[in-house]
């Protein structure tokens, strides 16, 4: 699948989550991670294009109301080639957002996202997006470089470093189609030149229809909360025993368990654990 021959000019997609704070445009914007994603796309494009006469294009997509275009203009000013706004409420659940983004990016082989947004920051959209695009995913990256090889579609194979718990790192080689998400520390978005800043004020922003109003409001918006965990009534003869049982005081409880499994088995084990703990429906 990887070849050494550089094919047609490719596009890198960048997804931005535009967040407005209490409807105030002065405090609206995107996260440092989203900005780092765009800068990462620039540097991937630069390494890809170095010494060739092709030019990798960068498309930035954000989902939100007209006000989100201000952020997209910032992306254009910094050097993105195309900006797309998906006309929808910025408060959709992650899977809907990902589905809408996937429609806009269906012919893009490499997508870079920030791994947290400026509000909730659960970092789930990139994973949903990878699923929608049937692409590989490498999330929470702290370093990205291109490996030199490109796919038949001209998308670069990427070498990435991922943060793991306990200060450990995981090195990945990611072959497109892929969705990457980066931490904010990966790169600082370049400052737009003054002429670019002025041009971007007038630039056209493509607008795609988002999920229909009915779909948008299918879910009521509520605070993010894990599901309640059902705890059986404590057993014990006296109040003290019941309190002991309830608080697990004196019991030897294992806190965490280390398992070594292949990814599919690991995923199954995680789901099983989540079900056991009451976070997912059995």
């Amino acid at each position, binding site marked *: 699948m990887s070849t050494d021959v550089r094919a047609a000019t490719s596009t890198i997609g960048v997804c931005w989550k535009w967040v407005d704070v209490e409807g105030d445009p*002065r405090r609206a914007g995107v996260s440092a991670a989203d900005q780092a994603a765009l800068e990462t796309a620039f540097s991937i494009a630069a390494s890809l294009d170095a010494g060739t006469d092709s030019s990798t294009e960068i498309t930035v997509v954000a989902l939100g109301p007209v006000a989100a275009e201000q952020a997209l203009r910032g992306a254009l000013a910094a050097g993105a080639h195309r900006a797309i706004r998906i006309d929808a409420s910025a408060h959709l659940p992650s899977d809907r957002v990902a589905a809408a983004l996937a429609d806009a990016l269906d012919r893009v082989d490499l997508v870079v996202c920030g791994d947290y947004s400026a509000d909730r920051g659960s970092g789930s959209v990139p994973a949903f997006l990878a699923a929608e695009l049937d692409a590989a995913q490498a999330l929470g990256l702290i370093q990205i470089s291109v490996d030199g090889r490109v796919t038949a579609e001209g998308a670069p194979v990427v070498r990435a470093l991922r943060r793991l718990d306990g200060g450990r790192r995981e090195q990945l080689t990611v072959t497109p189609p892929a969705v990457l998400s980066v931490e904010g520390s990966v790169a600082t978005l370049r*400052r*737009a*030149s*003054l*002429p*670019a*800043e*002025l041009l971007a*004020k007038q630039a056209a922003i493509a607008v795609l229809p988002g999920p229909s109003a009915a779909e948008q409001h299918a879910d009521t918006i509520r605070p993010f909360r894990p599901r309640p965990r059902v705890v059986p009534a404590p057993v014990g003869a006296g109040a003290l025993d019941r309190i002991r049982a309830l608080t697990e005081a004196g019991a030897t409880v294992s806190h965490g368990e280390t398992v070594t499994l292949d990814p599919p088995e690991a995923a199954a084990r995680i789901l099983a654990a989540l079900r056991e703990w009451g976070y997912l429906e059995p």
Partner: protein
Amino acid sequence: MLLERGPFAGSKNMYGGVVYPRILDQFHPNWWEEVPIQRWITRRSTMVLTATQAMTVDFRTQAWGEPPYNGATAYRPDFDHWLAGKAEADGAVLVTSTTALGLLRDEAGRIAGVRTDRPDGDIHADVVIACDGVNSFLAKEADLFGPGQTEAGNYTVGVKETIALPKDVIDERFGVRDREGVDIEILGGTGGVNGGGFLYTNLDTLAVGVVLKLPALGAQPRRPEEIIADLKAHAAIAPLVEGGTIVEYSAHLIPEAGRSMMPRLTTDGMLVAGDAAAMCLAAGIWLEGVNFAMASGIYAGEAAADALRAGDTSAAGLAGYERRLGDTFVLRDHEKLRRAPGLVLSDRVQHHYPQMIANVVERVFRVENPRPKPGFRRIVREERKRAGIGLRDLARDAWAGIRSFG
């Protein structure tokens, strides 16, 4: 093109808290229907404080609470953002997060634009209007200040705490309703440092601060926030502010010396406006700068447009600016009040008169039966002597006061 170094207009601006926007009547009739203000000032108090006394002259009028209004408390990030939006709607291009680093000059050495901190950031312009605030680097680079004009003695530092309190508590403590607000200007209460204090009501915060003469502040060991803390602890102020939470602390320089520190306002290809031109009016019972900044900005814009139309942006071509300033309150108020800052910040007005006035009032209203009431003239004479004020000084200050404020 409107350059702003902050991320949005108003993000970097700081002041005490009262704007007087009537200058906008001509451009945006009924501006009061949309201006984002906190409260309309309907009560204005001037308070004289000594360590243990307070005398307040309190004025209230409902007329200031209805169109066309008078002053209003407003947050600068709201007000300036709104005003910049007006400029944009009228065709200005606002470029934020962009700092002017210095002036560009043509081969003849004439000012021809500014250099900004963005890549490829030179802006070539026939006219530059420097309204970059107190400490204007552009006006300094253009060498428009005369000797001694930017000495520390011409500046005060204003420091302010914003204190959150529920709206109904503020309404009750200050005796106001709905959008009515209070402006209290304070003489004394600055821990012996020449200056003054202020207390303004926003909707659900108070602005409490002091304005301190720089050399006097530097000559004593206490920090401005300690001076504010003492002001807040004063018996006359504490009940107004207690129980609140400090949500913001800020500080900013004020060009205090008025007309005498104003730079040359026009040079080939450049005009200076607002605090950059020291147009802030800081004369004791008045602390106005935003209206002067707005007006001078308007007149600079008009003069620049005239000069561009006429194809002459030399100092002569831009002369319409100073003509407009001279015809209106901008320079007239400053001319008239040119002695006021010096008088208000003088040691006698700062330290001796407040003590004398407070003592006089304390004695006039003290009932010491069986002693009969003393004569008013005698009390004044005794208290004047006790405060160490010579008759000649009193006469001189009274005359200076009449000439500045009369």
